[in-house]
């Protein structure tokens, strides 16, 4: 039960008044000298007891009347008015559940949970790993049990956020219970605390910790060797072989020996081919099979980035170019080249994933059109606020309405990162605070009309913004990257920040060669292995998320702390929903009627006594 105006419940404190009066009245019985108290004792005292009972009845009637009045004003309503509420049973199907016997155990627990649904309670079944799917819509328990039999563990990693999100979609306007059957892996909570709708309760069913398991966590491909990172999740030293296959042929093997709980690099000398795909497997009898194999697609997958400068200023883009150079050696790194604005053409951008625009000076009409077309076709454009970048020119390029409006600001500022879930900032994790050390002396004050603000400066003005333009994405940073307006290039965070910003802007134009199961292209069907995807038939490797092999688990209390329950009427939508529900139920009328009944009862009892 929820209340539309819970503040009125404070009125219930008024019940203290009759209670106090009752107690005081009892205490002030005056002393009366008398001679025949012995005869009073012999009188049937039941009458006196009956009087006390009448007093209690009077007190109860008065207290009930006050309580009912307060309740009526608080406007109560049932959040699960459509019946007995909804029971959502969410079963963890991540690959950590594929250990022998574990998933069967989870299914049994889920069956028990479904069987405990009360009469009238609708039952829904959700299966989740890194995404949550409704396997059985809210309905009868039999449907849910039937759907449960078809569940199998997958290759995804545990993520609890989508489950809660799915319940939030299912449970709008009604209450219920969410039962999550899982192995309680800590890595499943990547986001901040999730929020269940009002009237929902969370229960967890723990199927136990990870069984002894060896996992192949990572591969590092070098020209003459492959380094396999082997993780031992058991409590005893594990030994075995690392096998490397190219196509169907095993080309090398190595021995591993890993201490309990340790992650060990196992180098295997092999002449690595330049094309095709590798399959690397470790021995793990009795463990989880999914994390024993990793795949690697060979060859380059680097994205090209054009840094467009004003041409005349040779120093412009220096720090940026050096920062991007650090990733050029990675298989999915960024290969940057600096070009003058006057030399930009559609052809020169066709092979690029992203363009970083440091200056609009010298940009020819054709260059402006080429950049706009490039962006609309899916390219990434990163605008860096600088003295040489004119907002009006950029607005004209894209015909933005309202146009990009900026004003230069002088004064010390720092970055104030609030949303670490954004893809640009997510890799920083707990190190996000380092961005706050950067000192900005000048910046742009950008009116965020039509833009999404990613992060702000310490005075609340936007620092990093984004917007979609056609199929592409535009990201704008409100200060420069050449140490003229800040000391950002001198900070270690500069390199990952610029790389992630450009990668994010490039989006689908990037051509990564390796994916985790949850983020793999649709053609891979979410299965680990080597797949050919895209129009260009490029080979990509899909691997399971190594975090899923982690041993860290959450206690039930910790798990609950990750999930908040939305207060009734907390959001405008839910407040409207609550008002509609309350309006349909009108329990307050019954409260007032009952209050009148209590008052009549009080009057009758008072008259009798």
């Amino acid at each position, binding site marked *: 039960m929820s209340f539309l105006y819970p503040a009125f419940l404070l009125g219930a404190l008024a019940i203290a008044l009759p209670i106090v009066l009752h107690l005081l009245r009892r205490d002030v019985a005056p002393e009366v000298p008398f*001679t025949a108290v012995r*005869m009073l004792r012999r009188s049937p005292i039941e009458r*006196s007891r009956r009087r006390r009972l009448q007093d209690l009845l009077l007190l109860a009637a008065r207290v009930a009347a006050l309580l009912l009045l307060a309740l009526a004003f608080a406007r109560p309503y049932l959040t699960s008015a459509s019946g007995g509420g909804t029971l959502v049973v969410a079963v963890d199907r991540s690959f950590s559940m594929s250990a022998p016997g574990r998933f069967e155990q989870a299914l049994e627990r889920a069956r028990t949970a479904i069987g405990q649904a009360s009469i009238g309670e609708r039952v829904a079944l959700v299966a989740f790993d890194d995404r949550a799917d409704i396997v059985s819509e809210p309905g009868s328990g039999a449907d849910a049990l039937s759907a449960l039999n078809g569940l199998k563990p997958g290759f995804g990693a545990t993520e609890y956020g989508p489950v809660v999100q799915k319940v939030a979609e299912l449970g709008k306007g009604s209450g219920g219970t969410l039962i999550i059957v899982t192995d309680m892996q800590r890595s499943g909570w990547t986001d901040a605390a999730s929020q269940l709708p009002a009237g929902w309760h969370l229960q967890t069913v723990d199927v136990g910790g990870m069984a002894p398991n060896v996992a192949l966590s990572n591969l590092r491909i070098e020209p003459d060797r492959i380094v396999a990172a082997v993780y031992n999740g058991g409590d005893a030293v594990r030994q075995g072989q690392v096998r490397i296959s190219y196509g169907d042929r095993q080309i090398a093997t190595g021995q591993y020996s890993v201490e309990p709980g340790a992650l060990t690099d196992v180098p295997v000398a092999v002449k690595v081919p330049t094309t095709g795909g590798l399959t690397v497997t470790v021995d793990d009898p009795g463990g989880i099979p999914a994390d024993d194999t990793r795949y690697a697609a060979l060859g380059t997958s680097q994205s090209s980035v054009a840094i467009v400068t004003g041409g005349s200023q040779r120093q412009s883009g220096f720090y940026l170019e050096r920062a991007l150079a650090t990733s050029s050696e990675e298989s999915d790194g960024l290969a940057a080249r600096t070009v003058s604005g006057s030399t930009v053409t559609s052809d020169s951008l066709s092979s690029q994933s992203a363009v970083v625009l440091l200056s609009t000076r010298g940009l020819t009409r054709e260059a402006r059109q080429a950049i706009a077309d490039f962006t609309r076709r899916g390219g990434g454009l990163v605008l860096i606020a600088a003295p040489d970048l004119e907002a009006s020119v950029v607005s004209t390029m894209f015909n933005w309405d309202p146009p990009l409006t900026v004003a230069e600001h002088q004064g010390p500022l720092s970055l104030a990162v609030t949303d670490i879930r954004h893809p640009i900032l997510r890799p920083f994790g707990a190190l996000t605070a380092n961005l706050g050390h950067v000192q900005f002396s000048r910046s742009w004050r950008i009116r965020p009309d039509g833009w999404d603000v990613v992060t702000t400066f310490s005075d609340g003005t936007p620092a990093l913004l984004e917007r979609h333009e056609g199929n592409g994405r535009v990201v704008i940073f409100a200060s420069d990257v050449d140490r003229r307006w800040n000391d950002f290039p001198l900070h270690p965070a500069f390199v990952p920040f610029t790389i992630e910003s450009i990668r994010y802007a490039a989006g689908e134009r990037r051509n990564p060669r390796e994916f985790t199961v949850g983020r793999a292209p649709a053609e891979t069907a979410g299965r680990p292995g080597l797949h050919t995807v895209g129009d260009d038939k490029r080979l990509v490797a899909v691997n399971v998320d190594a975090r899923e092999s982690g041993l860290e688990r959450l206690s039930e209390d910790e798990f609950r702390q990750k999930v908040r329950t939305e207060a009734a009427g907390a959001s405008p939508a839910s407040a409207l929903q609550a008002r509609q529900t309350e309006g349909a139920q009108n329990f307050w009328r019954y409260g007032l009627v009952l209050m009148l009944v209590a008052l009549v009862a009080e009057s009758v009892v008072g008259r009798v006594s």
Partner: protein
Amino acid sequence: MPTPATRDLRFLDPAVIARLGTMELKARTVVEGFISGLHRSPFKGFSVEFAEYRQYMHGDDLSTLDWKVYARSDRHYVKKYEEETNLECHILLDVSGSMGYRGSAPMSKMEYGSVLAASLAFLMNRQRDATGLIAFDDRITFRLPASARPGHLHSLLLGLERLQPGRRSDVGRPLHQLADALVKRSLVVLISDLLDDPEPVIKGLKHIKFCGTDVIVFQVLDPHELTFPFSGSAKFKDLESAEELITEPTAIRTSYLRELAGLTLTYDRALRGGGIDYVQLDSSQPLDFALLAYLAARSRRK
């Protein structure tokens, strides 16, 4: 026959008596007021001591006519004689703590009982009867042997004036003591609220009666004890035992009054059955009823 309405009740009203000074004055007022209301003097009767002549009135016994006077004066006169007495009266006054209770009456029960005792003593003294006083609670606290000497009444009244409410009452014990001490037939007047256990009281009174002594019992009760008019929750505290009881008077009034009626009925049946006069007195009511009861008992002795 005299009727109560013809008597002057002003001097019998406890509210008036309570304002009077000494016990003697109170007793005199009561007795004189009582006597003035009577048409026939209680002092007249069959005796050897001549008192006066009175003109014959219709209804007078012809045997009392003095024929010699008729012969001399040709008028009918009757001879009146002063009655002689050999009556010995013992007044037992309960002075226990409960007798000190005063509810809505002008006097406490003990004051009322004292005035009654004084009035009786005064009346007896006028009739030359020997009068004694015993005051008691759970033991005898004051004792004045019966005597008809002229100064005895003063001593008795003085003793009554000095009485104070005492401790718990035990009526039976002094009754047995008195019964053992009585050597000749006499009259015993017990003035008490009789809120004790009735059994020992009745046994004691029957003991006295068994000795051939006439007994009159005056049960003095306050109007509050008779009607229990209390309302609202109250903590009743016993004047003798100090025991307490918190209760709702309206809830137990009926049962209390039933209990009191049962006690009264017990005394009435047991005492009347034993030839003992039992009179219940309301301490707010005039004393004439008590004195009439005494005279009725006195006349029975003749």
